[in-house]
């Protein structure tokens, strides 16, 4: 960059009339419509079914979380970008996407300060400190969520999802993942599929996540390798306890449709910044994330593990990228 600018300067100072030659590294063909903004708007569109389902199921709780999440993310993006002295760029919608994903990953009953702190940490620590959009190592929304999850275990943990005495039916039951963890109860598959269960705002409905996720993959905004590999790994690993316990496939369905797996596989793990570059790398990433999800679900104290699985795989992404450098033609 600097050299090009210098060269341009020397040319203009010499004042020789010469044709302007643009030199840029390949690839020279590009889809100019494929911008960050378009990708982010695609993600927002894909999140509409999940948002609609959350609003239908949790009503004012969902509305409140979404408003706090998006608002706090936009405000902190403005502030932190200003602090770094770069241009304010709310137009690329990335902060809004982080806000929506963060809000949809929160428990419906989470207090306002938890969501707000999560948003500030997500944008500030998770994204801007690393250099802004495209530079972050970890998925910003998950950084924020992990921060408040560890900080406020009392109001964010598995038990905090249940609230009695509200007008929202779903809140009165345990989340499917927690019910299974605590009591070994499997939720009915149709309930998990349509999403009439308790859980984080966006994760309850499998069909909403699938709709949005397939839209993302068809639009090539998200690469299909990650969700496919992740879900396939979960199916394979879940089939072992399923067969061992004679569940007849219900345990597999529970692990695939219940919890945050589909939401995480389609919307969180596919974050193009934190995931590997090549198809092979993406497959490894998906397999690793799926395996970690099952490891955490089956053996950790937490009933759900998508957040930590994605964060851990984000951490090894540079390594995967190094393993999977494609060979150029003629190279042995």
């Amino acid at each position, binding site marked *: 960059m600097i050299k090009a600018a210098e060269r341009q300067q020397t040319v203009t100072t010499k004042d020789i009339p010469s044709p302007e030659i643009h030199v840029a590294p390949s690839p020279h063909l590009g889809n100019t419509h494929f911008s960050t903004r378009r990708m982010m708007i695609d993600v927002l569109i894909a999140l509409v079914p999940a948002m609609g389902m959350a609003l239908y199921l949790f009503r004012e709780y969902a509305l409140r979380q979404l408003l706090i999440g998006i608002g706090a993310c936009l405000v902190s993006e403005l502030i932190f970008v200003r602090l770094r002295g770069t241009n304010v760029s709310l137009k690329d919608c990335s902060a809004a996407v982080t806000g929506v994903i963060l809000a949809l990953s929160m428990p419906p009953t989470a*207090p306002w*300060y*938890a969501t707000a*702190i999560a948003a500030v940490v997500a944008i500030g*620590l998770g994204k801007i400190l690393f250099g802004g959009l495209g530079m972050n190592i970890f998925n910003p929304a998950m950084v924020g969520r992990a*921060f408040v999850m*560890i*900080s*406020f*275990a009392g*109001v964010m943990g598995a038990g905090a999802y249940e609230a009695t005495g509200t007008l929202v039916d779903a809140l009165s039951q345990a989340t499917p993942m927690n019910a299974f963890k605590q009591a070994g109860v499997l939720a009915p598959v149709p309930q998990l599929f349509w999403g009439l269960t308790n859980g984080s705002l966006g994760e309850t409905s499998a069909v909403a996540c699938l709709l949005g996720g397939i839209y993302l993959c068809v639009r090539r905004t998200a690469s299909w390798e990650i969700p496919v590999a992740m879900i396939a790994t979960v199916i394979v690993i879940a089939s072992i306890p399923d067969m061992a316990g004679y569940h007849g496939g219900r345990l597999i369905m529970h692990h695939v449709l219940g919890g945050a797996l589909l939401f995480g596989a389609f919307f969180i793990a596919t974050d193009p910044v934190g995931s590997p570059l090549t198809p092979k790398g993406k497959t490894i990433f998906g397999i690793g994330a799926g395996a970690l999800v099952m490891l955490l679900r089956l053996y950790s104290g937490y009933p759900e593990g998508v957040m930590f699985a994605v964060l851990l795989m984000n951490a090894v992404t540079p390594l995967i990228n190094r393993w999977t450098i494609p060979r150029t033609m003629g190279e042995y």
Partner: protein
Amino acid sequence: MAEQPTALERFVQGILPENPVYRQLIGLCPILAITNSMQAAVTMAVAVTFVLVCANAVISLIRPLLKPHLRIVIFTLTIATFVTIADRVLAAYLYQMSKTLGPYIPLIIVNCLIICRCEVCASKQPVFTAVSDAVGQSIGYGLALASIACVREVLGTGMFFGMRVMPAAWPDWSVMVLPPGGFIVFGLLLGTANWISNRR
């Protein structure tokens, strides 16, 4: 050889201009490990002050006898002597605090802050300069420990020196008490310190 700083310069430099934690980035292990409460941080700072002052004084006194190839060994042995004294005194009079700090008091032996001061100042300058250097660096170290511990304890438990300062409804940020909180707070404070010094 370049002219050595005077005792006053050494003293002043240790506090802010060459703060061991914020400017030199040395001795960070206890910074991250024991700053989740003010009491632990202050105890640590006092222990480090004791060891640093004594070690600097002794090294400065024996500096004509130091052999270049053996000096690090002598530094370490001298430091270890005083650390053992500090460790045993803590265990005798502040048993609970000694338990809380665990291995971090013995670890002062390998705290590079102290070896660094022995090497940079005490092995080259007279006793008075060495002691004033040690006191200055200790004050800087204590201030740094306290600044981090202050943020972590108030946010993490709503308390300051074990007394309630936040309203009862304050939600404890448990992550601040855990190790990640140490890294996050230290990083943010370090960034702030750099930002302030850049603006000057």
